[in-house]
């Protein structure tokens, strides 16, 4: 293949950003404990790397690639953050602002389930989000998280089971 075959046309990048920016931001933001600016940084960096990456190498598995790069980036950020001194100006405030009427209508029942999901282990929350929000397959989740496929299935099922139990109680 020629050189041009391995670069990304602008339309493709645009389409990929449109397709993945929301789930990636949600994923990164969750892993960073709601740090909205941090999530923006991580996702931006992820896409920038994508542009530099050889297209042929990753085109067939671009979803998994994006999430695993984003994940690595987030983990790196967490490490650096720990080593820097506390600076209150750096603390981002999450700006999750749905429109008011929607917030009222949905708040009640969403919050309940949301809270329950928040009580799951981090691992379970992560696989749930990757599967149900980002739409990754077990195989892709395994690639992103470094778990085995069987392990992914196990964690997901455990998460569903836990939620079912806590929903039944409440």
């Amino acid at each position: 293949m020629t050189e041009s075959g391995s670069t990304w046309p602008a339309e493709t990048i645009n389409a990929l950003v449109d397709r993945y920016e929301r789930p990636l931001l949600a994923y990164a933001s969750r892993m960073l404990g709601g740090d909205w600016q941090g999530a923006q940084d991580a996702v931006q960096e992820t896409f920038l790397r994508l542009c530099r990456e050889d297209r042929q190498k990753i085109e067939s598995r671009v979803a998994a690639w994006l999430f695993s790069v984003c994940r690595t980036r987030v983990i790196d950020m967490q490490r650096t953050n720990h080593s820097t001194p506390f600076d209150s100006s750096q603390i981002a405030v999450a700006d999750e602002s749905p429109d008011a009427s929607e917030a009222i209508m949905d708040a009640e029942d969403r919050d309940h389930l949301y809270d329950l999901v928040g009580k799951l282990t981090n691992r379970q929350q992560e696989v749930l989000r990757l599967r149900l929000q980002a739409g990754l397959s077990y195989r892709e989740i395994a690639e992103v998280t470094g778990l085995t496929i069987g392990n992914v299935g196990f964690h997901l099922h455990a998460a569903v089971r836990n939620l079912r139990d806590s929903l039944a109680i409440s």
Partner: protein
Amino acid sequence: MSDSTWDDPNVTAYILGELSNDEADAFEQRLRNDPQLAEVVAEARNVTDQLQVMYTREPSQTLEISRREKITGISSPTPATAQNTKAWRTTLIAMATAAALLLLVGIPSLMKQTTKLGSVESAVAPDRNEGAMMGESPIAETESNEFSAMLEEDMDFSEESADSAELESQFDAPGDTLGGSAIMGESKSKMAAPGVAADNNPLAADREATEAGYGTSARQQALEKSLAVGPTAGSGLKPAAMAPAPAGPASKRSSNAKMNRKMLAEGDEIGALADGGQADPFGFADDASDDDQLASRDKFANISENEYKRVIDAPLSTFSVDVDTASYSKVREYLLRQNRLPPIDAVRVEEMVNYFDYEYLPPKDDADSPFAAETDIFSCPWNDAHRLARIALKGKTMKPEERPLSNIVFLLDTSGSMNSANKLPLVKKGMEMLLTQLGENDRVAIVVYAGSAGLVLDSTPATRKRKIENALNSLAAGGSTNGGQGIELAYQVARDNFIAGGVNRVILCTDGDFNVGTTNTGSLVRMVEKEAAGNIFLTVLGFGMGNHNDNMLEQISGRGNGNYAFIDTDKEAQKVLVDQVNGTLVTIAKDVKLQIEFNPRKVAAYRLIGYENRVLAKEDFNDDKKDAGEIGAGHAVTALYELIPAGTEDESAPPKVDSLKYQSPAGLTDAANRDE
């Protein structure tokens, strides 16, 4: 429930579609033999469904504009393509509202004569530089008011709510009015049919200027025009929303317009108002098909737009009318709450048009027929050379005290998937609203279905409100759905309390997720049809997004002689269950079919806008066994045709068929030349 059944991770893998075909087959085998496992699967599915909804609803963010520009700046040397999705989404909503307003106001006011374009100019011109010079010239009078379209109605109703009322509109109107426009042309020594359009539309020059400036595609001309019509129609569109986005490379824009055309749901030209409106600012921002995979298991039947037909080959156009409105509220839900474009097949144009009230006059109280009909021809806002024909029917209205006794059975879906604020609680609210409309002689029963079907409230006079409210309050969502059983029970209850000559109706409230038991659409449809023959009709109210089976609901309501509405908010519930309660409950005509004959002298080709799945063969018109749509009290139906006037050469018309060897072509009757 045994916990060991829950130990198998395949349960979740099965629900999420992660098992290989062999594994899935084996699992289903087990499922059939093991009721406990089936229960576990249903519960787990309930959890994943709720999670899916939760994640869909989660407030989501997009990248900041500057960041996105950085990314696109790297990938392409021309950063002109960098876009801010968020801003577009807002614009999109504005556009959608505008489009809706257009549908609402545009049509009637297009038919009024002499609307000044001054407001258009002020709104549009700032962004179009010198283009809009034609501001002060009035839109030429549209023909409609000049010529009273003759509508010959041949209505034959044995009784008022006649079974199988057929409305035969021997409709020469297109011929008439178009003929009319020709006459007008002569008498004012102006305007032959194709010419009318150009004269009619002072915007033409405006658009040419725009074209010169931006090199926009033909598609976009139509859009700009339709935008321009907006304020004329008094919709108060904000200039900002209308301003075309700064021009990108021309070729790019036109290809985008095409892409949007494809992905945007309209399928139909009337939709071009909405469609065009969105195409421009939305650009290549979104890839709806990708989004769809992500978020939703909503199912829609495929819609393919009606084609043009030559009048010579097919002078009769026959279709069945009905006044479902679900599609509009559904699309609204997509645009306003999910910030996404609806899937193409979610948009049924006729439902968009019929959603709104155009204040048609109902028939007089002493009129013989339960309908008033109205027809009009006016210029086609997206194609100067074409015409739009509007055919409107208005059913007679009914005062609350005239409404016959009602025997209503609510069939409520209380499965786990209904457990969200815009579903079951909204159902309850809607029912409470409806109760206020019912009197002492009306009876209400409530059947629920979830894992198992049950009678929550046996048929009770509507005045015993306390009892009914208690029953309502005891409802809670849980378990999976067996639509089949519930619907059987509901019909059973309705039959037991049948009121001869009254309203007997099952009202199904569901999110349409029939996931256990008889989920076969075909067998449900057959049952519903059988009951409709026994005069128990079905109304379907759809709730909520996520796993809405639009196709099935539209089908069963159509076959069940009922109507189908989608309820997304309190207001919509108010509209369907209070303001239009008579239309929802009382059917004044069953199997309403419309047949329209076009005069080939005047009309070269025509295209029915919307009603794609309701087109009938011309023979069906006189075949009373053919099921067709129903019209409720006070309902109005509007059908639009796009016409290509005779004498216009138009590439969108289908090619001619070679003439027959063994038959001579049928000649025109004298009537064809008489402009009647």
